[in-house]
């Protein structure tokens, strides 16, 4: 697969051949593969650890969100219950007032009648 240049003299090709010979692949250092595999394994552990942390964070966030939502819901229910209780108390008070007023009215009517009879 010689790469010929159209205007290239013969000695140029000779130089290319020398260059090709001089630039053969070199053997990789003996520790290269071991280093790669170690880093890969360390990174995989780190990635696993990071994933775990993210899951823990997510779980904690969901728990906190659940607690907050639960608390908010409970507070709303409690407020509604108290409102209902207050409403019942007001209604009871109104009923009592109504009864008292009716009694008073009846007594006044009776009193008027007895006054007119005399």
């Amino acid at each position, binding site marked *: 697969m010689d790469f010929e240049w159209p205007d290239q003299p013969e000695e*140029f090709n000779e*130089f290319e*051949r020398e260059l090709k010979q001089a*630039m053969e692949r*070199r053997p990789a250092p003996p520790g*290269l*593969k071991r*280093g*790669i595999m170690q*880093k890969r394994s360390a990174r995989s552990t780190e990635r696993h650890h990071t994933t775990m942390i993210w899951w823990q964070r997510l779980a904690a966030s969901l728990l906190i969100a659940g607690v907050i939502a639960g608390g908010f819901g409970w507070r709303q229910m409690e407020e509604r219950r108290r409102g209902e209780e207050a409403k019942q108390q007001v209604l009871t008070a109104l009923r009592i007032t109504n009864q008292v007023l009716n009694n008073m009215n009846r007594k006044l009517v009776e009193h008027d009648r007895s006054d007119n009879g005399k």
Partner: protein
Amino acid sequence: MAQKWQPDFEKLVDEHQSMVFSLAWRMTGDRGLAEEVAQDVFLELDRHMARIESPEHALNWLRRVAVSRSADALRRRRVRGVDLWVEIEEKHGSPSEERQSPLETRLEQLLSTLPEAQRAALVLRYQEDMTPEEIAVTVEAPLATVKSNLHRGLKLLRAKATTNLKEYIRGL
């Protein structure tokens, strides 16, 4: 229907570690940095394994990422202000390089002084035996640019070799 190819990471490392390491070394001119780059490239491959469709795809992906990560590593180094060429001189002259022939060592030294794009084109061309069309796809550059980089790089390297390596190369 043909069964989908299942990449085996360890096997890919075995098959291509020499290629990735050599590309990174020739691109950076620094053995230690090349080892770091090669590790990063394979770890990135691990992250992209689901998207690798075939052995050829893996090979091309590794070549492309090795060249690009090597260039990034060099740029980072330049930003940090390290005098790379002084380091290269020291590293190439170290005793661990003695197994290499003097010609290879000197050629690589000269190669590391070329502009980045020319160096990438020459390494892919002469180490990986790739055609200009394949290089253009790998470095994501127009074919004309790749051809120009190859031609200029080769010319420049030859000119440098003429003054430095006359005693080693017959074609000079």
